[in-house]
């Protein structure tokens, strides 16, 4: 039996969860401790653009985009200095050909099982079961630790979006880390 605090017991008993980690706040505190100015996070006020799916999931072609620094054996890996490149990964790839490098998170579990940051097998299984129509032939991966949000907005994101439109996906699953 796990030892838990009274607060934990109360939360669990009432099916409540503790607060999400506020990464914006923690980053602010960390930067302050290190003497850096605060990081300027992307903030998009107002209502985001929204298009209803418009078809059943079992008829949908699903795209996958992930930012965990995933590449395939034979490809050039990402570097850690605002790398705005991306990789095409065939969605039929063997999982043991996938590699992960990144500076901003603990890679242990992603390397043991890439599905935790690149849920490819998960989606392949669901396509098998007709929960989705099909997986798009290529997934796109990039190195998410890019400090310049301008570069992402103006260079990287439009390039990936362009590919996704050409791939004629109905919906895209974005997996950040």
């Amino acid at each position, binding site marked *: 039996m*796990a030892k838990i605090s009274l607060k934990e017991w109360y939360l669990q008993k009432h099916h409540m969860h503790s607060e999400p980690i506020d990464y914006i706040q923690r980053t602010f505190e960390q930067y302050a401790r290190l003497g850096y100015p605060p990081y300027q996070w992307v903030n998009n006020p107002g209502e985001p*653009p929204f298009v209803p799916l418009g078809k059943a999931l079992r008829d949908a072609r699903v795209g996958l985009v992930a930012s965990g620094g995933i590449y395939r054996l*034979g490809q050039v890996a990402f570097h850690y200095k605002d790398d*705005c490149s991306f990789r095409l990964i065939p969605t039929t790839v063997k999982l043991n050909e996938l590699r992960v490098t990144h500076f901003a998170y603990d890679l242990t579990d992603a390397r043991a*099982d890439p599905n935790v940051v690149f849920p490819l*097998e998960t989606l392949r299984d669901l396509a098998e079961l007709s929960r989705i129509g099909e997986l798009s032939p290529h997934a796109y991966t990039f190195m998410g630790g890019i400090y310049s949000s301008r570069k992402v907005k103006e260079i990287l994101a439009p390039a990936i979006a362009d590919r996704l439109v050409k791939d004629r996906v109905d919906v895209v699953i974005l997996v*950040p880390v």
Partner: protein
Amino acid sequence: MSSAYSITRSVNTPRAVYLDFPLGHTAGKPGDKALQRKVMIDTLSALDTIQVPGTIRTLPYRWATTDAWKDKVMRPDSEKKKHADDRVERSTDPQYQFEGDRQAAELNLADNGCTDCIWLEPQDLGKQ
């Protein structure tokens, strides 16, 4: 999919699901296929059923029996290790998981270029 609620809130995506797990586990736990599948089914369901733009739906899975792991994230204790990493000068050298990956990539580049690598910035266009 997200494991950083306040960041996703600030970006204000059309739709999102939030999984209260440590960074590096946005889609689930390693080796736990059943949980990975549940998370993905919930994600797809959200795609289907979210009506209000900007909705972030919290998924009902816990990382551990207690939330003690949250106390250490990006806090001074763990920082010693992280700060040590930061002292390594960031360069534009590709960072490979295995040394064999570097050799495979260089062979590939020499042969017919990396066709699945897309570089977008002017300084990188020679790499292909």
